[in-house]
Each structure stands twice: as C-alpha cells, then as structure tokens.
C-alpha cells in the first residue's frame, strides 16, 4: 500500500514537473536567447551576455510603427466594442425570453465565423460601399486602420457582450427599480447603480478586447491593407527569418504580463483580507505589512525593478567580449584560408582565385562559410568538407547553405570567383549585419536557380 502511494507520488510529482517544463520551458529558453550575442536565437554555445538585441528591436521601425498602429486600433476597438457589448448584454437581459435565444445566436455568430472570412468580407463590403458612393482610395473605405477597427469590432464586441452578460446575471433588477422609485431618472439609475455594479466587468471587457485586438492576425492581415500592425509586421519579419530581437520582445511581453499578474494578485488578496477582517492574516495585521503588500507598493517596486534592469541594460557594454569572439572567429577563418591556400598551391594545375568573402579580416561568422561557395565548386572538391564542419563556425545555417553550392552541379565555379569584392557574398557578410540570413541569402544568389531558401 505504502509503496503504491510512493509510486503514485513520484508519478504525480514527475508529471507536474514535466507539465510545467512543457508550459514554461520554451519561454525560459527564449528569454535566455535574448541575452546571447549570437545572431541566431540559441543558448549554446553561449557567446556573450548582451542587451543589444533590445536596441535592435527598438530600432526596427517597421515593427515600432506597427506597434503604434496596433495601439491606435486597439484603443478604437475598445472604445467601440465595450459600449456595443454592454448594449447587447442589456438588450439580452431586457428582452422577452422567447426572443432571447434568437438574439443571442445572432450576437454570438461573429465569434464562430473564421476570422479570415470576416476580414475578407469587411474589405469587400466597405470597398463596394466606397466605390458605389464614388469614394477614392484615399477615403475611409480604403483606410487600413478604419477597416481593421470595423472588422475586429464585429467579433470582439461579442466577447465584451459575454463578459457583461455574465455580470448582469448577478444584478438584482430591483436595485434599478428602487433607484427609480427614490426619484432617480432612468439615466441616473443607470449611471449611479448599474454602471458602478458593472465596473469590474467594464475593466475586464476593456482589457480582453484590447488583447484580442492586439493579437489578432487572421482578420487584420486582410483589413490592414497596405499598413502594418504589430502582429502583421511581426509575422512578416518571422517569415524572413528570426533573430534574438524577437526573444527580446518576448522578454518584454513576459515582464509586462508578470508585473500585471502580480499586481492583480496583490489587489485580489488585499480585497479578500479586507472582507475577512484586517487582523486575520499576518501581513495585513500591522500597518507596515499592509503598506508593503498594497498593490500600488507592489506595482511601484516591480516597475522600479524593471526600470533598473533597463537602465543597467542600456549601460551594459558587450563590445569587448564580442570583439574577442570575433577575433577568435577571424583567427579560425585565417587558419582555414591558409590551409586552403596551401592546398591550392599544392594543386598548382588549378587556377587560383581568392574568394571575396574569405578576405582576411572579414569578421562575419558567415563570411568564411559562404565565401567558400565559390572555391568549393567542383574544381576543388576537397574544400567544402573543412569549411562546413569548421570548428568554431557558430551558424547552423552557415554550413548548410554554404554547402549548397558544391552539392548543386549547376552552380558554376567561375562567377563568384571572378568578381572579387563587389559580389553579393561580401555585402551579405559585412561586419555588423545582425541577420543570420543576410549572408545566407546573399550567397544563394550566385547559385541562383537551384536552392530554395
């Protein structure tokens, strides 16, 4: 019996650990990659602790403009959805029961329709309307922000309605009657009795609709037209490759969420402690403890902590460390080149052409790898092996793409070799290029037709 219990306990503890690892593992790893100087998000090998990726993130104008657009759209959606949802919930509460289910179905349908359909139908409807009214492309009917707000409201208002409905079910309608009877106008009864009761629901509805608007992609990708929201900008960025600045974004989002959750928890606990009576819990028993766990104190503390981290991060200089890493790579590169040149000399019958990318002093980790595309062409079949498996080459793609060349018979050996410094390889591997793919794609070009990215 006791062994059975022990096994059960081990199993349940193990399961719990696995479950949490499954939930939070990706987040932890991703957060860590934001601080590794490696230009691909990963934690091994750890190169240098750096905060540069946050700078890269912030200097991405497309993303930042998308953020501004998203905020504008979010505010618009909240401003329309919350009153609309409230009106719908009130209508549901007041209507006769026979009509209620029909109205409910009508109001809830947009939630069930795929976002893609909503997005397309929004642009079709407003576009047709605009054209039939003779409006041009500069009018509201073809304004991405306007269309996105309208398109998102169609289903996000239903979310708000559900929240209000849930709260309204707990409202005692005699309170409104009492207010009327005591001389309040219907407007006063609504403002002074019903609205204060709904205040928590208004808060949740505003928060939820803002989040729903912010994270929406399916509908927005159609209705935004030529503009970009944060989400669509992010999606298109990911399509062209990922770098640790996305991890930096994840760190920021996780931090904001955590601060929000902790402050909310402090707020809830305080509420419970106040209802239960102040002396029940140790922390709430004395004035200092109460002050320490007040939600505002907690909030100020966490924001202060975050601000401190940001300040520290802004003044962190990882240049020296990165320089050392670069130096190491450069040395490795030179060693490889020398080795290669030695081999080339040995094989004197072959023409000699130093590749552009393999010029000494090229600090890019990819330079060597991609530069080898040229020389590694069929004439020098021995070369690819050492470059692809070169120790110290940090990019998993560097080797992979570099090796595309030799593996593809159609790649001619000559072109890259015959145009030394101006070739795409050298531009892609320019020092300081933060994208891990910059080099990769640049280098693919010479070998054009064959390798798909």
């Amino acid at each position, binding site marked *: 019996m006791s062994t059975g219990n022990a096994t059960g306990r081990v199993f349940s503890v193990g399961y719990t650990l696995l479950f949490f690892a499954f939930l939070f593992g990706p987040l932890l790893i991703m957060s860590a990659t934001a601080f590794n100087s490696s230009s691909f998000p990963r934690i091994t090998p750890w190169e240098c602790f750096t905060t540069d990726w946050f700078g890269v993130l912030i200097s991405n104008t497309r993303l930042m403009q998308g953020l501004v657009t998203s905020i504008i759209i979010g505010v618009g959606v909240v401003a329309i959805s919350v009153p609309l949802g409230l009106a719908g919930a009130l209508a549901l509460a007041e209507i006769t029961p026979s009509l209620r289910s029909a109205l409910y179905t009508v109001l809830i349908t947009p939630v069930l329709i795929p976002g893609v359909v909503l997005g397309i139908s929004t642009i079709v409807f407003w576009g047709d309307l605009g054209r039939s009214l003779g409006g041009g492309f500069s009018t509201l009917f073809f304004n991405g922000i306007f269309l996105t707000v309208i398109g998102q409201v169609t289903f996000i208002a239903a979310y708000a309605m559900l929240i209000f409905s849930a709260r309204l079910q707990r409202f005692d309608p005699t309170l409104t*009657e*009492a207010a*009327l*009877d005591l*001389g309040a106008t219907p407007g*006063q009864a609504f403002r002074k009795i019903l609205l204060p009761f709904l205040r928590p629901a208004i808060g949740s509805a505003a928060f939820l609709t803002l989040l729903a608007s912010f994270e929406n992609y399916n509908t927005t990708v159609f209705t935004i037209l030529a503009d970009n929201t944060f989400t669509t900008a992010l999606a298109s960025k990911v399509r062209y490759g990922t770098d640790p600045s996305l991890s930096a974004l994840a760190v920021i989002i996780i931090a904001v969420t955590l601060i929000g959750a902790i402050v909310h928890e402090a707020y809830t606990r305080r509420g419970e402690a106040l209802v239960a009576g102040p002396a029940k819990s140790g922390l709430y028993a004395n004035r200092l403890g109460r002050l320490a766990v007040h939600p505002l104190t907690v909030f100020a503390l966490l924001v202060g902590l975050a601000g401190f981290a940001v300040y520290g991060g802004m003044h962190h200089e990882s240049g020296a460390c990165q320089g050392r890493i670069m130096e190491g790579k450069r040395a490795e590169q030179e060693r490889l080149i020398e080795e290669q040149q030695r081999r080339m000399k040995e094989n004197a019958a072959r023409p000699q052409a130093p590749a552009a990318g393999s010029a000494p002093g090229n600090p890019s980790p990819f330079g060597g790898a991609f530069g080898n595309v040229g020389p590694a062409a069929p004439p020098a079949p021995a070369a690819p092996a050492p470059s692809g498996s070169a120790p110290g080459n940090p990019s998993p793609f560097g080797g992979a793409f570099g090796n595309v060349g030799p593996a593809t018979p159609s790649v001619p050996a000559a072109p890259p070799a015959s145009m030394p410094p101006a070739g795409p390889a050298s531009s892609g591997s320019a020092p300081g290029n933060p994208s891990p793919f910059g080099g990769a794609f640049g280098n693919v070009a010479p070998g054009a037709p064959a390798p798909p990215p």
Partner: protein
Amino acid sequence: MTTRDVRLDHVTIRFGAHIAVDNALLTIEGGEFFSFLGPSGCGKTTLLRCVSGFIEPTEGRVLIGGKDMARVGPNKRPTALIFQNLALFPLMSVADNIAFPLEVRGVGRKERRRRADELLELIALPGLGDKKVYELSGGQRQRVAIARALAVEPDILLLDEPLSALDLKLRQHMRTELRAIQKQVGLTFIYITHDQGEALTMSDRVAVMNAGVIEQIDDPVTIYERPKTPFVAGFVGETNTIAGKVMSQSGLDVVLDTPLGPLSGMAGGGRHFSVGDACLLFVRPEQLSVQAAGAFSATVVKEEFEGNLRHVFLDGAGTPLRLSRVGGGAPLAPGTSIALSYDHTRSTVLPASGARA
C-alpha cells in the same frame, strides 16, 4: 381630502388573459396604516406596484392626493416603496444609501450627510452612516431601508412584505417599531403581507384579497370576528367549518341543520338566507370550550402541545374540528367523547357557494 389620500378607482390590471387585479375600488385615507392581506399570487404586489408607478392599470385610475397618476413615472410620484428584499445599494455606505434620494435631486454633499444623520437618529441607528450595507444585521438593514424611503419625504410609504426575511422575534419587534415610526411621521403606510398576524397587529384597516379580488375591507377586529366571505373566514386565523342547511333566521341569528345537530350563528355581512340554503358555520378554535352541557359532542383524536396553547383535534360526526385551550390540566385521551359549546354571537354563518356580499 389630503395629499396623502390614495384612491383606487375601479382599477383592473390584466397580463394577457390573466386578471391580476379585478376592479379594485377603495380609498385609503391620509395617515392611515392600510394593509393588503392575501395568499401569494392574489395580486396584492401587483396592486402595490401599480400605486408606486411600475405598472399602469389596464382600466381605471389611481389617484394620489386627488391627482390622476396616469403616465406619472415612479420617480415622479409622492410614494416610496420598500422592497421585499429591501434593495439596498450594496456598493454604497449606509449614509449614501439613505441620502440617495437627495443625491439624485441635486442636494449638496453636506446637507445630504446632515439629513442622513437625522434619519439614522430617527431609526435609532446613530453613528452607523459609514458602515457598509453588508456589515449590518437584518433588522438594521430593515430600518435603513425605511430611512432611505423616508428621505424622499413621501406622502405615502409602500411596504412589500418587508419583514418576511426576518426571524420570528425580530419580526415581532419590527411590527411594533414600524407602527411607532408610522405614528411619528404621520404618513400613509400601505403594507403588503401574507401574514395575518402582521396585518392584524399593525393596521388601521385591512383589505383581504383573493385571486385579484378584494374580498373585504375592515378594521382588524371586524375582519377577524365578522368575516364577510368564506375565504376571509378561512384565511384570516384558524377556524372550524361546519356545513349545514338553514333551518330558520330571526334578525341575524341563523339556525343551521348540521351533522352535529342544530347549531346557531350570526349571519355574516348582514345577509338574509332562505330556509334550505346551503351554508357554512365558522367557529374559532378558541371559542369552543369543553362544557358539561354542551351544544354538541365530539371525539378526541389527538392533542398537541404548543407552549401557551394546547390544540385538541376532534372528530364531530365526520367533521374535523379543533379547539385551542389555555393552561394545564390533564391531557384529553384519544377516543374520549366530550361535550362542546361556543358563543354563537361570535360565530359566523356564510353561504357555502362563496358569493360575496
């Protein structure tokens, strides 16, 4: 006629085919404590909501202080309603609750607080203004609801079974208190209840309602002692019902031929019966007494003990009877045959068909 009069002028209220209130015609005088008494679903709450303005009568008029209240909303009428669940605003303090009527009338904060404190004095809860509603006991909430209604300075206070949620002791205490407050402020109180005890102890006059119809309007003693319809006789207080046929009537004295023998009673509502009419004789349990030379005899079924009273259940020739007696003495053994008598001037004879006077 004062501003505190309420007149229901042939008020009928229908919900679809259902008649909730049927042709109510009555005048409640200023300063009166008037109760509507009836079982649930008899239309008394509908009538109250009609007076307070939440329901418009289908036919007829409601006049308050001589003025027709048609299309005057509840917030414009000189009435204040105390709800069954009190409907205190849970998010406001006690003082804010009481001052709510003043707030919506644009009275300043200081004046509101002063009035709220005054009213808290009146209901004997001084200093509780800053408490939350949920911190109060049931009886305190009751009084806060009254104070809030009085803050409107209404001419008529309407109370919809406000005591039903309280326990017995508190209910009895609040009866006295309500009556005292009514005397103090001098308003017209219209009180809705299904509890005959409440109606009889507090009211100046009581209207007994059944299925939308007002059966009788009288002072409590008359309602109890001289019911005009079988429903009133049966609903207000306990009673023994003995069926019979009229043998003779002289003045109000009626003699019935019953399974228990010829029994006499007073003709209810001053009716005149013909010989042979099917009638019911109503005798209160406390009017029955065990006497050696009784008017009739019955067999004891069982006796129940209820503190101050003993209820004796009897069988009189197939008619179930009950008798209430005060004091001790040996319990009556089941199966014993006892002779019973009653004061016939305090018993009532009413037609069995249930027709109203």
